[in-house]
């Protein structure tokens, strides 16, 4: 089922040093990693970043194919980036040219670089969601986004909404699949036809889906109320956020990594 292939937001349960880090450490680490990818100016930097990421993946005990599965939905974007950069950007050492389509050593280098950066970007962020329970992730974000209170936005509510969205992604995907099948059985056609017809053919899918989503929302709100939910005030947590020695170690290692990335920006080897 294509609809359930999406890894984003799918937690991979395991006991590993990465899993046991505080979620805030992981969020900040991921954020830092993404920035470091933009610090890198050469393949040396990306290669080093990739190797470090591979070590972290190994450490996290998440099978590599779960991480690579995150690529599937954005494959198109990566290929698009590759093509645009390789065939449509300028360069000195021309290899081949046909009208506006041209290819040069520089453009190949640039295209490969951009694509590699995108891939690492996806791997890095997938690893965050694979090793962090959604609820911890939202707790961490809630804590990190605490400054939003200054702008009259409740970080708790934001985090709660995100947590619930993550929880119901599989449910809604299943629901979509079911409704699509049911309407197909009634002769509906979602795959072929002109653009207008295809847009129209979505009505029998979207209306029931919205009705379902509203029903789920109403049920859930009732269930949450019955379990004494009344917003963030006075709530405690099963997994109270606490920085530990592990987080300190991780922070130091990350600082070393970042320093190495900056050095490599100055002295590219490849």
């Amino acid at each position, binding site marked *: 089922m294509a609809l359930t292939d999406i890894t984003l937001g799918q937690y991979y*349960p395991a006991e590993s040093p990465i899993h046991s880090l505080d979620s805030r450490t992981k969020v900040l680490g991921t954020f830092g990693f993404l920035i470091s990818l933009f610090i890198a100016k050469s393949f040396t930097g990306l290669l080093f970043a990739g190797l470090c990421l591979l070590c972290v993946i190994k450490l996290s005990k998440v099978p590599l194919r779960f991480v690579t599965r995150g690529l599937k939905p954005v494959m198109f974007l990566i290929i698009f980036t590759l093509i645009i950069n390789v065939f449509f950007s300028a360069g000195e050492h021309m290899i081949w040219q046909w009208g506006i389509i041209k290819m040069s050593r520089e453009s190949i280098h640039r295209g490969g670089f951009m694509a590699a950066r995108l891939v690492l970007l996806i791997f890095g962020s997938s690893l965050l969601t694979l090793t962090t*329970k959604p*609820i911890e992730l939202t707790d961490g974000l809630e804590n990190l986004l605490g400054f939003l209170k200054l702008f009259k936005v409740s970080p708790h509510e934001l985090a709660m909404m995100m*947590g619930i969205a993550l929880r119901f992604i*599989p449910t809604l995907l299943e629901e979509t699949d079911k409704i699509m099948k049911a309407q197909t059985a009634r002769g509906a056609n979602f795959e072929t036809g002109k653009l207008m017809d295809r847009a129209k053919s979505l009505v029998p899918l979207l209306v029931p889906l919205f009705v379902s989503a509203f029903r789920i929302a109403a049920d*859930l709100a009732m269930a949450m109320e019955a379990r004494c*939910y009344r917003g963030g005030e006075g709530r405690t*947590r*099963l997994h109270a956020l606490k920085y530990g020695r592990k987080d300190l170690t991780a922070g130091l290692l990350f600082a070393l990594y970042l320093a190495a990335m900056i050095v490599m920006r100055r002295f590219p080897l490849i």
Partner: protein
Amino acid sequence: MENIIEVKNITFSYPESEEDAPAEPTLKDLSLDIRNGEFVAIVGPNGSGKSTLAKCLNALLLPEEGKVCVAGMDTSDEDLIWKIRSQVGMVFQNPDNQLVSSVVEDDVAFGPENLGVDPAEIRRRVDEALKAVNMYDNRRKGPHQLSGGQKQRVAIAGVLAMQSSCMIFDEPTAMLDPSGRAEIIDVICDLHRQGKTIVLITHFMEEAAKADRIVVLKDGQLAMEGTPLEVFAREDRLREMKLVLPFAIELADQLKARGIELPKDIVTEEDLMAALESLTAGRKTAGEAVPCA
């Protein structure tokens, strides 16, 4: 025994949304007491007000007239609402739409977290609750990896972790297959044995037969009330309301119609089995009977 829940002359109607909606109230001048540690089954046709009544018992809905008291607390008192809801937990019909978290143990923790319980204590309660419903080994799984019966058990654990003394089940088995249904009924009976007060709303008379007392609702009013034996004895009324009798009672009736004399107190299959045993005590196998002259 003390009453944990007292319902006094309540009336409730939903706000009219459509012009042809029934103007009649959903609950009409209804009174009901539930004793501490009792197992009460509430049955009745669709639209008889069962679910509405259940939601009035823990202040999810407030009656227009009359009042509901939980352990002496009036549900209309806003300051007591959270105390009442932690006392009277609720498990709903749809197993999917009542789990909040993507991880089983975090979901069970949701109630105590809302009550501001200390993290170490939450951990203890969550583990205990999950063990009580036999879901401890699945504590790290996501709801989408569980069967319907397992999801309902997680929902039950979520209420247990709030340490509610009374649990309301609103058609908890309606969407389950036979094995899931049996799982949940076993858990409910277990909880009752451990001293919890149980209110079970159901369409299945086999399930209601396990209760201490059955309450039959019709058009928002109390139509009948009594032990399973007393209620099932008034078959005509039940059939009128389109309620299906338990299998053992149906079979006993059909046997009586064929001239077999059976005692009146048959509710379960075991009762019927015992009655047939006493009828045939000391006799040989039916097939080998001596043909009568």
